[in-house]
């Protein structure tokens, strides 16, 4: 028992076992969804409206709704998030305000998603009278992904070497010119990574859109940003808990489309990051 080599072997075995306990279920989840969802995927499923109380037909309105929501969220969150990141990396001094901003970002990223839903309901739907609409949902999702965009953009901006800035300033460029023409172009891949990760998060979240936009069943496509819309994650929730006797294939198919959408975005983000790291000049 007092043999250190042997206890090391035992310990490492258990650490390995713990790792398998995480990795194997993740693999299984993905495999099960692909295996059972793939037979449901065909052109009709992707392009038709849900039929017979959502038991057959397609999921087209839900796909479109999710795309609208995600686009709306990013149009709102990207400019604010990027400028906030520029402020934190280029302008902020290490003082009390800066520390409060950091704390606020940490907090925003920790607020439960359903609380964002409540907030969106109280502010956008009721107080500003946008009603349950794509606008309310997008703004709610936008605020939710703001911390992701700020944090990743800030890291990207801060990783641009200080000497780049000094050279630009010494050539007579102003601070904003330096940021605009030197710092930002070099930080673009990092900002893009953060943006795409934010998109993926917004596409998969259900709780924030429950009371701000999501429609249970809406066969036509939304015509303006003040319309309600269906959304993929909410649709999956509805057909797996609220509607009885839905064909298993339809459920797995919907799960597969949602999972593919989210994982595809994450994959793109990972590839951009990987290429950027390889090409980095400094």
């Amino acid at each position, binding site marked *: 028992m007092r043999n250190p080599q042997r206890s090391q072997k035992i310990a490492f075995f258990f650490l390995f076992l713990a790792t398998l306990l995480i990795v194997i279920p993740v693999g299984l989840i993905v495999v099960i969804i692909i295996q059972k969802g793939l037979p449901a995927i065909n052109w009709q499923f992707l392009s038709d409206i849900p039929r017979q109380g959502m038991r057959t037909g397609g999921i087209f309105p839900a796909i479109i709704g999710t795309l609208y929501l995600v686009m709306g969220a990013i149009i709102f969150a990207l400019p604010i998030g990027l400028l906030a990141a520029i402020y934190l990396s280029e302008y902020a001094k290490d003082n009390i305000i800066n520390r409060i901003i950091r704390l606020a970002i940490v907090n925003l990223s920790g607020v439960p998603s359903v*609380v964002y839903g*409540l907030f969106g309901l109280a502010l956008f739907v009721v107080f500003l009278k946008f009603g349950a609409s794509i606008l309310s949902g997008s703004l709610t999702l936008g605020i939710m992904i703001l911390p992701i965009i700020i944090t990743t953009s800030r890291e990207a901006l801060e990783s641009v070497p200080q000497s780049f800035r000094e050279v630009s300033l010494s050539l007579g460029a102003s601070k904003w010119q330096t940021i605009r023409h030197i710092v930002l172009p070099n930080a673009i891949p990092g900002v893009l990574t953060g943006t795409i990760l934010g998109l993926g998060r917004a596409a998969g979240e259900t709780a924030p859109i429950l009371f701000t936009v999501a429609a249970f069943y809406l066969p036509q496509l939304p015509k303006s940003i003040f319309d309600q819309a269906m959304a993929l994650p909410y649709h999956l929730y509805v057909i797996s808990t609220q509607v009885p006797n839905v064909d298993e294939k339809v459920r797995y198919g919907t799960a597969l489309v949602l999972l593919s959408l989210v994982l595809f975005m994450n994959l793109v983000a990972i590839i951009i990051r990987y290429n950027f790291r390889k090409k980095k000049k400094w």
Partner: protein
Amino acid sequence: MRKLKEFFIEKLILICGLASIFFVVLIFLFLTKEGLSVFKSVTPGNFLFGKSWYPISEPAHLGILPLIFGSLLVTLGAAIISIPIGVACAVYIAEIAPLKIKEILKAGIELLAAIPSVVLGFIGMVTLVPWVKSTFHLPTGLTALSGSIILAFMAMPTIVSIAEDALYSVPKSYKEGAFALGATHWQTIYRVLLPAASSGIVAAVMLGIGRVIGETMAVMMITGNAAVIPQSILVPVRTLTATIAAEMGEAVVGSEHYFALFAIGIVLFIMSFIINVTADLFLHKRNR
């Protein structure tokens, strides 16, 4: 002209920099604006410690103690499962795994973090719930235990990645010193590296738990949603988050029920605030 333009741009940047503070305050204001109205009809004590939650009966019973117990039980279960496994996995990735496997494992963890909670909830419903039902011979598999297992998987990516960061940032010299004194790799890990990274690991665990308490969809789909104080982990429970998500659709805007759900939102907001601020303190302690 250029000066003026830059002046405005820099002001705009400053405003956006302050936006996150603005939003946190705005969230808190709107939660309290709606939520505090509930205390006209129920005292804060009865709200927090009342044993029954019947929001639509006459008169309404608005005690959230069963919901708090539901959240705590599910969270405790998830913590017991995810903390040892998560920390062990972090140690494996940071210290033992060969470089290639390490990259694959990290990608796998990122994959897990990216799976939407509604998808995990769905998978839990079709695989885990029937398994729990038949294994423990229960009338229903929608139990706190099922919720705990699924939530453990949602906490693990957070725990693993932050704990791995903490282990990675322990100075190399600590490890070399321990090796030079003749310690084995495992002795170095648990006598030197783990204590040195402890505050980062505590932060990782706290943030993981924060994620669990705030999780909504998966929990609503697989815990059975019974708003009673649970007697064991094998019965249906209902959490704070699931209550809001499940009932807000039916609550009339401006009703007592509506205000009560916002008051639950305040409770959740304050919980996540405390967890995140404390975790941040632990993380910064490490950096100093």
